[in-house]
Each structure stands twice: as C-alpha cells, then as structure tokens.
C-alpha cells in the first residue's frame, strides 16, 4: 500500500492549489481525481471573476480572503504565467430604490479594505460604458475587480504542484475511508492509500465524500446558471458589469475575458441536470442581455453552457454564507461548498490548508519549493509551432503536442490547456486532427 503524508481528494482548481501549497512544506502529497484529467468539474464552467471583495460581510473569512486573494492575483499569475486582466467592474442599477443597496456594498467594501471603490452617477457610468442601456440610477465602480481563466489557473497550479513533487492518481475515485491509529486508509477504485492527512476538495461531491467516514454538518444544494460566450470580434464593455437585479432585469453579469471573448452569466436557479442549460434559461438570458446591453450583437454568440455551484447549508436548512473548513477529526479537513469567490481565493485557501496540514504534521518548510511554472509557449523557431491546427484561435501543432505532453488525454483536455476549439467554429475544423494527434500519442480512439 502506498503511503503519503497527505492526500488531496478532488482535482478541481481548489484541490490543485491545496496540492501546490502542501508542497511548500515537506509533506509527501498525492492528488486523487476521479476523472482522467484535472479541472473538469465546477472549474471548467465558471464566471472567471476575480472579485474585489465588497460583496462579503465585513469580518468574514470570505471578505478577508477575497481582498487578499485579489491583491495577490498579479503576483500569483506572474508566478504561474497565466494571463490576468484587472479590468475593474461596475455594479449598476436602474432603480433609485436600489441605490441604498449599492451604498451598503460600498460601505462593505470600505470596511473590507477594498481599494479605489467609488459611487458613480448614472451619467458617469454611462460615459464609462456607452454600451449599457441608458437610464442608470447609480453604479459602484471597483477598479480592483479582474478576470482570469479558471481552468488555466487551476491547471497551472496542478503543473506547479507536480513539478514540486506532488504525485497524482487520475481516474481514481475514493469509495471508502477507514480511520486507523496512524491516520486514514482510502479505499479507491485502484489501490488503497494510507495517509495521515486527508483534504477533501471533492467539489460537488464534498458532502458525500465526508459522509464516507463522518457525518458532515454541512450539506450541498446545487444550483446552476446559463452562460453565453461571444466572438472576440464583438463590440463589448471594457469592465465587468454586474447588474443589480431591478426592474430592468434579474441581474446578469458580463465579463470581458482575458481571451477577448465576452462572457455573459445568467441568474442562478434550481438545478435539473448538472452542466446542462435549459431552454427557458437561455431564452431569459438572451432577453436580459438585450435589455442591459441593447447594442450587443448576440448573433456573435459562439457557445452557451451551463455551470453548477455547490451551496452549503446546515441540517437546519439555514444556508452558510462564509467559507467553512470542517475538521471532524485530527488530520481530516473538508472544504464543503466553496463557491463564489472560490476562484479569487483558491490560492489563499490552498495556503491556509497547507499551513493547517503542516502544523498537524509538524512539517518543515520545503526549501526546494519553486513557485514558478512555465506556460505553454506561443511561438518558437520549431516548425510545429508555425503549423496552425486551430484556425480560429491560431493554435499550433506544437502547442497541442505540448498540451498532450503535459497531460491532456482528450480533445477537451487540449482545449483547456491551449484554447484550441474555443473559437467561432467551435472545433468543427480542428477536432479531427487533434484526435489524430491524441491517438498517435496513445490516447484512445474517438
């Protein structure tokens, strides 16, 4: 039986950052993921927002971590070579009666230490974002809000964890956990694994995972939202636009992503099928989008998708507004219901868990830890890096081969690493060739 100091269960962005930060210490680490690749769940369908931190209750760990995660995002993205855009955000309302809500957010922001926020008049907001429907009552401007690609950040953390010695077991689900004097035994779909520390980052299944050994005091209720992605050539707002729900609509969000696409996120609602969109949801989202951004050319939508969010609540039914790390027994930590602003806080949560595990294990600092990870390069003298396979996003054979070397085993895995197939033809011209390259490298037939 393999033995590790710590096992992280779940290879979403959170698990990847926990694994990365465990390696800041002399903690032998294994990341276990049930799928064949990391970042295939909540991480792959996400609003991509790095929040400023004015939404959260002053004094909460969410508020504190969000402001810190936001401030540290530049250096984190530099270390991991992931593009980050601090585009700023506008929270707008069209109803005078909603202005006090905005004032409360501003006050929250002040108390939480969010820098540079201010209230704008409707005219000021309209001048800043001329594509917004006229008639804005007021807006909160937060210059520190930004956007980062969630799966790129997660995969970067994963690669950095592996490069620092974390081991990985993909296609491995945990079916049972036993407690022993020396720690825990994980019964998996493969070999059993012994460890002293278990960190449960199982996302949508985190409550069920803890249930294998301890009754969780936190439960998950899933909800979902629809998203639209626009062609990068579409004229779009420059800031992230949050629309405070009012008489003009239910409150959608428009995000100008680092890749140049505008992403539009709809309103959260009860979930029927995870990661599926609903016809009514899409219809509503198009209608809300037209209302908020009347000049936006929605004929330039290239994709719609559904996202899932895990909402934590107590047995009593009361929802839990803050991040909570359950610690039902020594060495067992559960991150249940880490939702918005989980992306913003992913490295901060990882750091916190790393410290908890290190204190428990009395581990020393890993002096060899290297926080830097190299991104897949765009241009090289190599002829493979001049051969374009994905015409829309201009992704070369060289980049795709490197994505496969780094662990992509499916067309989607390649897509998440280099962005192939994300463009206006949605992979209809490059999928075959990428599948062929995957096959040549031993990754299954179509």
């Amino acid at each position, binding site marked *: 039986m393999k033995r590790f100091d710590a096992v992280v269960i779940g290879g979403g962005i959170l698990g990847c950052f926990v694994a990365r930060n465990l390696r800041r210490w002399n903690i032998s680490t294994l990341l276990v993921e049930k799928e064949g690749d990391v970042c295939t769940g909540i991480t792959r369908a996400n609003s991509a927002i790095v929040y400023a931190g004015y939404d959260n209750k002053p004094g909460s760990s969410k508020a504190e971590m969000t402001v810190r995660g936001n401030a540290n995002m530049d250096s984190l993205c530099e270390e991991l070579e992931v593009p980050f855009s601090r585009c700023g955000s506008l929270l707008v309302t069209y109803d005078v009666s909603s202005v006090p809500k905005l004032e409360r957010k501003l006050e929250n922001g002040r108390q939480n230490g969010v820098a540079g926020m201010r209230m704008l008049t409707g005219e000021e907001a309209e001048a800043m974002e001329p594509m917004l429907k006229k008639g804005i009552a007021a807006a909160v401007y937060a210059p520190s809000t930004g956007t980062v690609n969630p799966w790129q950040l997660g995969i970067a953390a994963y690669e950095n964890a592996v490069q620092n010695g974390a081991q990985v077991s993909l296609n491995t689900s945990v079916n049972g956990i036993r407690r022993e004097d020396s720690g825990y035994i994980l019964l998996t779909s493969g070999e059993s694994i012994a460890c002293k520390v278990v960190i449960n980052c199982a996302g949508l299944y985190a409550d069920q995972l803890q249930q294998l050994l301890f009754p969780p005091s936190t439960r998950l209720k899933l909800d979902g939202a629809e998203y639209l992605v626009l062609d990068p050539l579409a004229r779009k707002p420059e800031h992230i636009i949050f629309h405070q729900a009012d008489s003009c609509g239910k409150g959608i969000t428009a995000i100008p992503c680092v890749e140049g696409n505008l992403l539009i996120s709809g309103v959260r609602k009860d979930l029927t099928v995870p990661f599926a*969109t609903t016809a009514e949801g899409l219809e509503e989202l198009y209608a809300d989008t037209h209302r908020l951004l009347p000049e936006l050319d929605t004929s330039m939508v290239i*994709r719609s998708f559904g996202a899932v969010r895990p909402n934590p609540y107590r047995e009593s039914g009361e929802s839990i507004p803050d991040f909570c790390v359950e610690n039902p027994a020594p060495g067992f930590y559960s991150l249940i219901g880490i939702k918005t602003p989980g992306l913003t806080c992913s490295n901060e949560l990882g750091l916190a868990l790393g410290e908890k595990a290190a204190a428990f294990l009395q581990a020393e600092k890993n002096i060899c830890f290297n926080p830097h990870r190299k991104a897949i390069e765009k241009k090289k003298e190599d002829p493979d890096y001049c051969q374009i396979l994905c015409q829309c996003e201009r992704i070369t054979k060289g980049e795709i081969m490197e994505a496969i070397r780094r662990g992509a085993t499916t067309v989607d895995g390649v897509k998440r690493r280099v962005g192939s197939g994300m463009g206006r033809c949605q992979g*209809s011209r490059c999928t075959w060739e990428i599948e062929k390259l995957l096959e040549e490298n031993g990754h299954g037939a179509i």
Partner: protein
Amino acid sequence: MEQYDILIIGGGAAGISAAKAAKGAQVLLVDRKNALGGVLLQCTHQGFGKNKSGIEYAADLIKDFPQEVSLTLNTTVLSISKDRTALLSGKEFGLREIRFSQLILATGCREIPMGALPIAGTRPKGVYTAGQMQAMMNLHGHTPEGPVVILGSGDLGLIMAKQLAQAGLAVTLVEKKDHCGGMIKNQRCLKEFPIRLICGDTITEVHGYPQISGCTTAKGITIPCSTLLIAAGLVPERELIFGMEKYDWLHICGNCNTVHPMVEAVINEGKLSGVAACNNLRGSL
C-alpha cells in the same frame, strides 16, 4: 520583405480562378491545407459542372493552374495589416511577412456550430457540423453511429442525409421553415431513401452525457439519436480583413463574399476579382 503584386488567400474554386485570371502579375496563393481545391475536395457527391464530383471538378480546375503563380500550401495567414503586409505561418517556411499591392480574399465560408444556436441541454459528444462530418467521412473514412438527426434541410443537410442513408443509417431531417430548404436536385434523396423530414420545427434541446442520446424539438418531439449534425447555415469567413472592407486594394470573392449554391458563380467571382486586381495594378503604374 518579399513583395507580390497580388496575394490570394484561399485555394478553393474562387482562389484558383482568381489566380488564373490574374495574368501577367506576380501572384502568391496561400492555402492552409496541403492541396488546392478547398471544400470541393471533401465532396464525393455528383452535382458539380456536368455531373462531376467535387473532387473531379477540382482536378479539372487545377489542370491548367498557371505555373507562374507562387503557391504556398499548409500555410495560414495570421493577419493582414492596413499597410498591405501579411503575416504567414506554415510548417515549411515558419513565420513569414510579405508585402502585397492587391489582396484577393477567397477564404470561403464556415458552418454555424451548435454553440451559436439557442439549443439547451448538455454538451455531449456526437454533435458535429454537417461539413465536418462530410470531411470525416470522405477524407478520413469515418462512419458515424446512427440514428442520425440533421438540423437544417439546406443543400448541405440534404447531401449529408443522402450519404448517410446510403450508408444504411436512419436519418431524420429537422427544418425550421415549413418546407425543405435545398435545391430540387438535392431534394430527390427524400424520395429515394426512407429519410424522415420534419418541417416547421427546430431542435431546442439535446440529451445525454457524455454521448448524445437524443434531441427534442420546439414542438416537443423527442428523437433518439447517436449523432446530431448541424446544417444550420454558412457564414462568410471574413474576420481576417475585419475593419478593412473599404480599401480598394481588397477584392472579396466566392463564398467569403456571399454564400453561393453553385460553384460556377464562385468561379465567376474569382475571375472578376483576378481581373479587377490586375486592372488596379495597371492603374497604379
């Protein structure tokens, strides 16, 4: 920097005929594929010229392709600048910047993918565009799993319906309009094969994950399927010259100008662009 009188982007029917018409000029033709012919090369069905297949028709077109035209295959044009330079990227020459006097855009069109349509549900495997499947079948010998649903009964939808029915697969066509959308000659397959045609309806939801298991229409019909082809229309591929449409050195021809149902019209436009580019060259001398 290399300098050409005329740069032609795209080596399909439009680009080839433009190259032929651009007599006396120094021409560079660039295509991203490894052969001239464009989309014709994936068309095994009859119906081009006097009942030739696309492949045969392309072979005829290429026969008298002018020797003096410089040809660069396996190369993508990354960008066009207003100062009339183009950045090329290809496995043989690497990155290469060239200067041109006249530009003929003959980049054809692309298909509307499922993502662009308001179709709800999961995002399963087994959904392709019709032309994508045409290339998979005719260039790579792939056969999809049936039953197959095709959204859109335009020419491409009908051509694929016929080919799949010929391969013995059960095919259902779903058409938004209240009548079949394609040319009469392409509609004949509806009589020759047991192809189901549903008009006045459209697909609003797909089911199944990770593989597609069926789709539902606006009128509530659920059709089980293992493959869904989107034949919902073609879009001229003009992003390369975004914001440059007004320049007189730019000539747009073929399906990137407007989508033509007949190859003859594409060839004619290519010819006109070739001549216009040459006339502009003479005018500037």
